[in-house]
Structure formats: structure tokens, C-alpha cells
């Protein structure tokens, strides 16, 4: 809402500067977002919240300012309760008004003004309209807009002579009318439930939203039928939304207009028309079947103070409410009884009255006291602690935390070559995405991270490690909310040429190492890795994480085909992983149970074998650990060699095996026997030979 300060001053002399006015309004709930210079005036740009329809006018702001400053209001019309001017009724032969739906239209009133000269409005009025963001059109339409801005009530002017049959019918369009051509020249299909104003032949206005083109006031117009009515807010909003059509008028009606100001608004407009367009007020009509009845709200002063944590005197509460136009008094039962004015449709109950008292009293005057409450040992909770732990472990492995939008490009699913039945194809689709590339919700975090990698590479960053913990969204069916599993995903690329300490490990093992570090930290021991079938990973350099007997994620090198589809042109390998954190959280073991540390020393043996290239280290380790000897405590692989010293297609792997007895010191002799047996059996099992 834009309010020129000069216009405001016609209604009230606040006795303070425009800046002081802005501050007062802001601190009472009408946030002044800016002060804009407009010629020799200043426009207050006020953010009027949706509940305060009463402040969508110069009058409304002046009323509020009067409450805040105590300065009196100068009204351009007789005050409430004063005897209204007597205007002879319009003869029914000229205009007969019928409201067929009194639920949606509680009052319909009008004025007939004849012999006007339609033409450009005066300059001063045009400037004020423009300062408020409206376009001047002609003196008649400008007056309706001027009064809308001044008093807050929408008006509409019809060319009286284009209204057919001397009839005005207010009714919903259903089953009667199909469409209307509105003032903006657009022919619109009337949505179900839309309220229209019709004459004897058809719709002449979309009630409360926009007039019809067929009855528009033009330069040739001589006689005016000026309309002011009260329309039910939800109906107006529903129709306006269905048509995608919003106007200054619908904006006010859908927030709740003041039904009692209607005669004053009509008279104000009629007198301005007489003044600016000539013509004479010829008659009035006012059909008001559902009279306004203010709710009576009862509440106790001590309840207000309890809710606010304040000590405001009861008399002060009464004073505040009465200044705001309420009829407030002490009721016989010792409570306060308050009835809001007709322009405060937002006030419905006790809480609204509490707010009125608090905001005029001043939020700053309410003391600040920390609450007392029962202690709680809940803390952040296991899940929050777990997520923090995961982030910390990933950072230790060099992965910075990324945060991406939850959206996904439908093309990403193609780029990942996911088969039609893959669960990641079950994406939630947005009905109104901002752009096509953001029209799905993520079913996997990987595409976002690939995008991040590309962003960083294009800016010259060489070594990139990013990890994101986020929910993804898996659609189940249309009626139900999707699943929201929590994922941890990571991406990395290493360019080693400039790294000082060379590390010859394959990139795959760095990524897998990060995953293993996490699993170690979480003490999840029941786990292994098996070759992965993910279609977007390098088939020879990818593995699924199997933990607790089920697949919990994967780690691997992004396949060159997928990288290319994502327009990544780097020659270095890109590693990715994605884990189900919900599943891992469920696999967290109970607290450790201490086992005494070994009392007796171990004996070690190293063993290097040459095997076929396809033999897996994990299989060899498993064979050794499962070997029927109670003394084998542990076995690890410590070397891998392929090259000229072993035959082509073969590789050499070296293992360290640790033997220990729990109750005594083993002797070299007894281990010699066991170890020789193990070596022999292992070579048979793997088809390998000892490395010379």
C-alpha cells in the first residue's frame, strides 16, 4: 500500500515528521518498507499484512495513526451515527436491484448520476493515483479509484444507458452464464461458483473483481450507475484465482471490506463526480439484506496479562480498544466485553483482542522473562547426533559438506542410464516447477554432486571432494506422501601432478577408504563389498556395500559414458558413493563389551602368492580367517604387484598372518606346521603358486 504523506495529512495532523510517522506505524504492525520522494511529497510504502484490510486506504492509515498519536481525524464524510444525507431512491423502473445469493453479497448499493461529461480527470487526482501505482483513465473511473484508495472501498461505475432492462441481478454464474468480456478486453470463461452482476440480458461485471466491457464508461457516457457492494471474501478470492485475475478491488474484497462505509463511499464518489464531471446525483439504491452484527468478545484482563506476561491495567486495555473503534466496556461479570468496528473483520476472538492491546501498548513494554520448565535429557537426539558424526568423519576424509537444492533434472535419470524399473525412476514430479531442469525431486544425490564438480572444475579447482547428507524422495503412489530416505553421497576427483606426497592408490580405493572410515567410526563390522551392477559406474571399478545382509549403497568410478552425458570432460577418474544413512543408523551396534587384551605374544608369517588376475583379495582373506586353526587371529593383505616379475594375466598378493593362542605362548615349531598346512591348502584353493 502506497500512501502519499500529503494525502494522509488531509485526514490527520500527526504532529510528527514523516520519518516519525513511519517509525510509529512500523512499531505498531504496519511496516513502512520505504519512504519514496514523489515530487514535493513523500510516499510511505507500507507492507499491510493480509489481516489488515482496514489499512488498505489513506483513511485506514490515518485511523491507525490517530490511535497511536491521539491526534483527531478529519473525515471527508459525516461521522458514524450522524444522520446521512437524504437522497431520493432510484425509481424501480430505472434500476431494480435483486440479490439472489445473500450469502455471497450482503449489501448492494448504488447511486445514479446523470448528465456527466466524461473526459480526462484533473491533474492533482491523476498525480495521486499515479503515486499510489494506479493509471488515470477518465474522470469517472479516476474518481472510483480515488475513493478506493482514500476510503478503501471498491466502487464500480457502469454506463447507465448500457444496462439492459433496468435490472441488476447479483447471482452466481452457475448454469446461467458461461462467459464475460471484462474491461481489459479479455473474454473469460466464468468459473464455477463465480459471482456476477447481470442486467436483464447477461453479465455486466465479475462481482468485486472487474467490470464488463459492455457497460464500460467511455467518453460518450452521460449517465452513470455507481456501484458499491459487499462480497464474501473467499468467493472473490476463489474466482480471482481461478481466472488468474487480480485487481485493486478483488485485493480488498478478498481481505474483507467494510460493509458499513458503503453509503459514505458512494456519496464521496458522487460528490467528486459532480464536482469534476458535472452531472447531478439523481437517486440512490441500497439493498442490505444481511445487516452487519459485530461479534461480542468476552475476556478477562488477567487472562490478557497472563498470555502477555505483562501487567497492563484493565482501564488501559479498555482505553486502547475504544480508541481502535471497538465498543469495549466492563461486563457485569467482571470481564471485558468488546465489539470490533465493522472494518475489523479480522477480529474474531480473545487472541485478536490480546494482540490489539499488546501492539498499541507496545511490544517493547512487555518484559522479557525466561520461562521455567521441566528439565529434559532429550538433547539433540540420536539421529541429529548421528548426522553430525557422519559429517565429521567425511570432513576428516577430506570431503567438504555440500548443500544442494532437492530438485533434479529429468534428464539426469537418462544420463545415469537407470532401467525403467529402477526405484530412482519413481521421482516426485512438481506441478509448478520454476524450470524444467528442476521439475523432479531428487531420488539420488549424485546428479547434484556431479553438477557441483563441474562447477568447481570449470573454475580451475583440481582436487575436489564433496559430500552431502540429504533426504531423497521416492514416490510410492499419488495419494500418499513419498518416502524420504536419508542419504550420504560423495564425489571426488584427484589431480596428482602437483601433489607433493605422491600417493599411488587408485582413486577407487580413496573413495572406498572414506566409506570404510565411516563404517569403522560407526563400528559396523558386519559388512563387505561386492562388485556393483550400478549402470552409471565403471563395471570393473565399483562395489556395492553389503551391511547387515543387505545392500546399503555403492562406491565406484563414474562410468565414462555417464560422465560424458553430464558433460564432464575430465580425463581423471571421478569417484562417487551413495549410502543409505537410515539403514546404517539401524545397524549401529550396542555399546562395546570389553574383552581382555591378549596376554601372550603373537607369531607373524608373511606369505606372497602369485594367482590369476581375477582372484579377489577378500576371498583369500576369508579363506585364511576361516582356516580350521584356532590360532589364526588375523590376516591382512599388504602388497599387490603386477608387472614383469610375474607372468602376464597374473598378480602377486602378499598377506600378513598373525597367530596367537589365548592361554599360552606359541612356539615357532608348532606354527611352522600349521602355517605350512595353510600355505599348501591355500595354493590348492586359489590355484596359485608361492612367489619366488
Amino acid at each position: 500500500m502506497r500512501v502519499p504523506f500529503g494525502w494522509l495529512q488531509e485526514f490527520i495532523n500527526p504532529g510528527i515528521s514523516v520519518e516519525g510517522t513511519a517509525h510509529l506505524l512500523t512499531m505498531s504492525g504496519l511496516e513502512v518498507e520505504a519512504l519514496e520522494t514523489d515530487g514535493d511529497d513523500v510516499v510511505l510504502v507500507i507492507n499491510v499484512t493480509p489481516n489488515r484490510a482496514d489499512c488498505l486506504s489513506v483513511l485506514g492509515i490515518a485511523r491507525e495513526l490517530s490511535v497511536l498519536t491521539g491526534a483527531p481525524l478529519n473525515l471527508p464524510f459525516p461521522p458514524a451515527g450522524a444522520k446521512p444525507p437524504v437522497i431520493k431512491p432510484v425509481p424501480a423502473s430505472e434500476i431494480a436491484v435483486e440479490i439472489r445469493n445473500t450469502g455471497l453479497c450482503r449489501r448492494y448499493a448504488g447511486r445514479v448520476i446523470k448528465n456527466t461529461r466524461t473526459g480526462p480527470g484533473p491533474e492533482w487526482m491523476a498525480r495521486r493515483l499515479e503515486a499510489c501505482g494506479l493509471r488515470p483513465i477518465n474522470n469517472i473511473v479516476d474518481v472510483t479509484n480515488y475513493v478506493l484508495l482514500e476510503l478503501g472501498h471498491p466502487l464500480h461505475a457502469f454506463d447507465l444507458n448500457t444496462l439492459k432492462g433496468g435490472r441488476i441481478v447479483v447471482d452466481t454464474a452457475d448454469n446461467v452464464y458461461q462467459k464475460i468480456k471484462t474491461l481489459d478486453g479479455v473474454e473469460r470463461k466464468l468459473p464455477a461458483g463465480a459471482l456476477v452482476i447481470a442486467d436483464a440480458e447477461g453479465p455486466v461485471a465479475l462481482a468485486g473483481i472487474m467490470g464488463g466491457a459492455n457497460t464500460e464508461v467511455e467518453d460518450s457516457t452521460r449517465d452513470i450507475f455507481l456501484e458499491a457492494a459487499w462480497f464474501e471474501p473467499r468467493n472473490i478470492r476463489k474466482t480471482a484465482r481461478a481466472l488468474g485475475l487480480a485487481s485493486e478491488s478483488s485485493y480488498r474484497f478478498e481481505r474483507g471490506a467494510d460493509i458499513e462505509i458503503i453509503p459514505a463511499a458512494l456519496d464521496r464518489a458522487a460528490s467528486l463526480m459532480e464536482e469534476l464531471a458535472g452531472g447531478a446525483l439523481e437517486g440512490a439504491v441500497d439493498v442490505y439484506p444481511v445487516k452487519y452484527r459485530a461479534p461480542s468478545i468476552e475476556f478477562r484482563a488477567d487472562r490478557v496479562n497472563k498470555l502477555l506476561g505483562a501487567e497492563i491495567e484493565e482501564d488501559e486495555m479498555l482505553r486502547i480498544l475504544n480508541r481502535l473503534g471497538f465498543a469495549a466496556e466492563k461486563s457485569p461479570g467482571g470481564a471485558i466485553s468488546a465489539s470490533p468496528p465493522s472494518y475489523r473483520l479480522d477480529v474474531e476472538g480473545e487472541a485478536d483482542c490480546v494482540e490489539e492491546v499488546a501492539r498499541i501498548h507496545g511490544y517493547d513494554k512487555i518484559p522479557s522473562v525466561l520461562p521455567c520448565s521441566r528439565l529434559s535429557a532429550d538433547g539433540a537426539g540420536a539421529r541429529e547426533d548421528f548426522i553430525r558424526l557422519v559429517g565429521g568423519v567425511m570432513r576428516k576424509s577430506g570431503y567438504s559438506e555440500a548443500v544442494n537444492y532437492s530438485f533434479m533434472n529429468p534428464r539426469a535419470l537418462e544420463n545415469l542410464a537407470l532401467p525403467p524399473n529402477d526405484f530412482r525412476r519413481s521421482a516426485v514430479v512438481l506441478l509448478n516447477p520454476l524450470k524444467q531442469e528442476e521439475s523432479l525431486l531428487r531420488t539420488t544425490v549424485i546428479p547434484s554432486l556431479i553438477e557441483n564438480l563441474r562447477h568447481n572444475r570449470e573454475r580451475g579447482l583440481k582436487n575436489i571432494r564433496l559430500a552431502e547428507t540429504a533426504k531423497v524422495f521416492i514416490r510410492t503412489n499419488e495419494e500418499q506422501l513419498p518416502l524420504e530416505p536419508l542419504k550420504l553421497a560423495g564425489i571426488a576427483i584427484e589431480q596428482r601432478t602437483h601433489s607433493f606426497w605422491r600417493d599411488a592408490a587408485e582413486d577407487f580405493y580413496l573413495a572406498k577408504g572414506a566409506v570404510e572410515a565411516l563404517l569403522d567410526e560407526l563400528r559396523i563390522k558386519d559388512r563387505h563389498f561386492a562388485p556393483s551392477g550400478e549402470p552409471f559406474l565403471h563395471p570393473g571399478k565399483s562395489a556395492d556395500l553389503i551391511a547387515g545382509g543387505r545392500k546399503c549403497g555403492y562406491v565406484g568410478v563414474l562410468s565414462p559414458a555417464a560422465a560424458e552425458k553430464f558433460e564432464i570432460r575430465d580425463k581423471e577418474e571421478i569417484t562417487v558413493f551413495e549410502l543409505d544413512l537410515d539403514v546404517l543408523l539401524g545397524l549401529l551396534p550396542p555399546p562395546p563389551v570389553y574383552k581382555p587384551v591378549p596376554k601372550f605374544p603373537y607369531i607373524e608369517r608373511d606369505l606372497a602368492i602369485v594367482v590369476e588376475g581375477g582372484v579377489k583379495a577378500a576371498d583369500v582373506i576369508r579363506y585364511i580367517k576361516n582356516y580350521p586353526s584356532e590360532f589364526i587371529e588375523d590376516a591382512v593383505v599388504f602388497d599387490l604387484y603386477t608387472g614383469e616379475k610375474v607372468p602376464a594375466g597374473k598378480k602377486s598378493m602378499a598377506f600378513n598372518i598373525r597367530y596367537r593362542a589365548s592361554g599360552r605362548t606359541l612356539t615357532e615349531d608348532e606354527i611352522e606346521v600349521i602355517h605350512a598346512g595353510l600355505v599348501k591348502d591355500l595354493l590348492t584353493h586359489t590355484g596359485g603358486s608361492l612367489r619366488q
Partner: protein
Amino acid sequence: MGGGDIRESFLNELAPVKTIGDLEQLRVRYLGKKGILTAELKKLGGLPPEERRSAGALLNETKIFVEAELAARKEELKELDLREKFASQAIDVTLPGKYTPPGRTHPIIRVMREATSIFVAMGFSVEEGPEVELDYYNFEALNIPKEHPAREMQDTFYVSPDIVLRTHTSPVQVRVMQRKKPPVKFIAPGKVYRCDADISHTPMFHQIEGFMVADDISFSHLKAVLESFLHRIFSPDVPVRFRPSYFPFTEPSAEVDIGCIFCKGTGCRTCKGTGWIEILGAGMVHPHVLQMVGYDARIYSGFAFGIGMERIAMLKYSIDDIRLFFENDLRFLGQF
């Protein structure tokens, strides 16, 4: 040879010794089984008693002297050896250490954790709710029926007519109240979505919802809790002000401003010259919201607030473009 002569010749021989080996040979020469001093000491038995006494004392004194000198020189030579060894093993200690440079914390996650910790310290628990939410929880149960103008305050992404991307973390209020009896006291951090993207809006951002309902909770409690939070997350001397506002699910409602941390209240570009920066929305839970979940609004009251984390992070770290948070540029992330 007398004690004095021995001492003199020993010192002469000791002077050029440079290695532990030479020193050992010298020791044997004087103190070994056939050493010079040992031989002289053996001779003492053949002397007359009156000479034996003084000559013996002199020789013993000489022996102690020689032993001490040898020990001292041995220490010196060992020290020298070690120094040479160290010198030959020296490396360039200015070369970088070998480690995996730790990843960095995203600034949004950083402030989310900090804020969460502050509220947890005040006794709030942490709750979570779905990001794809029923219209009912996001709007209806929060006193925002269909065709309510307040729906325009939040541009909404729709999945179906009844399912939306939550536009705020407030639906968690309703879900928790449906599950728990009062008193309740929790925060709900998470992602929220608005169908809006420009220089100061991103379609996804982060909020922390705060909620406390009991039989005696007042607006003054809300003020104190938020002031404590803002003083902890910014600084104890940052001014905080509450001004009336409107949210359909709170009444009275408030916007909370802090004194501009850039200009200290004198007015600058960030605060649009006002000296104040809007930082969060809050209010007393609307009785309709309580009634809809079966809480008796005549007995229970409470407050709710929603804090935009991007805003907090931008002010805390002087970040001038909200879009930076979602590019994940390592030159940006590396600063946190």
C-alpha cells in the same frame, strides 16, 4: 713414575683424542689390567709403609682424576657424534606435512548446528517432519484454509492439489502436537521450499522452527528465549526489537529485528538505512491451532518462531549473495 707425571702424560695423550674408540684405548692404557696406573698401584705394596701412605693417596687421587676426565670426554664425544648424526639426517622441515586436508563445514550447516546447540542447551528437543507435506499440515491445520489471502505470503510448490513442498517448518508443530501431550518444547530444523527465485530468494532454504506450549507460557517468555538466542548467535550486545506482524498461526504475532551488525544502527545498504534487520517471525500459538489438535486453548498457551538460517549465516559471515550457499564452490566452502 709418580702421580704428577702420570697426570701430565695422561692429559697430553687425552688432548688429541677425537673418537670414542681412541678414548677407550687410552682408558685401557692407563686403567686396564696392564695399564700404567694399575701397574703403579700394584707397586705400592713394595714400598716402605711410611712412603706407601703418601704415594698411595697421590695415585688414588690421580686415578679418580683420570676416570673423571675420561668420563667427561666420553660425554663430549658422544654429544659430538650425535650432533653429526643429526646434521647428516636433517630434512627440510618447511615441506608440508602429509595429511588429508580436512573437508569444510558448509556455512548453513554450521549455523544450523550452532543454533540447534543453543536451543538444546535451553532444554529444547529436536524434531523432524517430512519435506513433502500434506496441504493440511502446511496450511489448513495452521489456520490457513484454502482461499485464505495469507496463502499468497508463501509461493507454494505443488505435487498434487493436496500435497505440497512444505513452505515452512511449522507443520512439524502440528505433527508433534498430534503425537505428544503438553507440555512440549522442541525445535525443528530443516529445508523449506518457496516457488520463488531471484537475487535474494532461492527456491529452497533452511529454517529452524521453535515451539513451546505449557500451561503458563507467555509472550514475555518468547521475547526472552529469542533474545537469549540472538545474543548467543550474534553477540551479547546486539539490540533486539519486536514489532507487531501477522501470521495466521500465531496471535499476537511479531517480526523480530536486530540492530544492523554492519553499521551498528546508523543506517547502511544492508539495513536499507533503517538501522534494523528483520531476522525472524514469531508469536503466540493461535488458539485455533491448539484446538485443532485437541489441546485445550483455555489451559495451554505457547509460542512459536521460525528462523531463516540463510539470513543468519549471511549476517554472521558477511555473505552478500544467498545463491552462493547452493553453488558449493570450494573457494567459498573453504572459508568456513
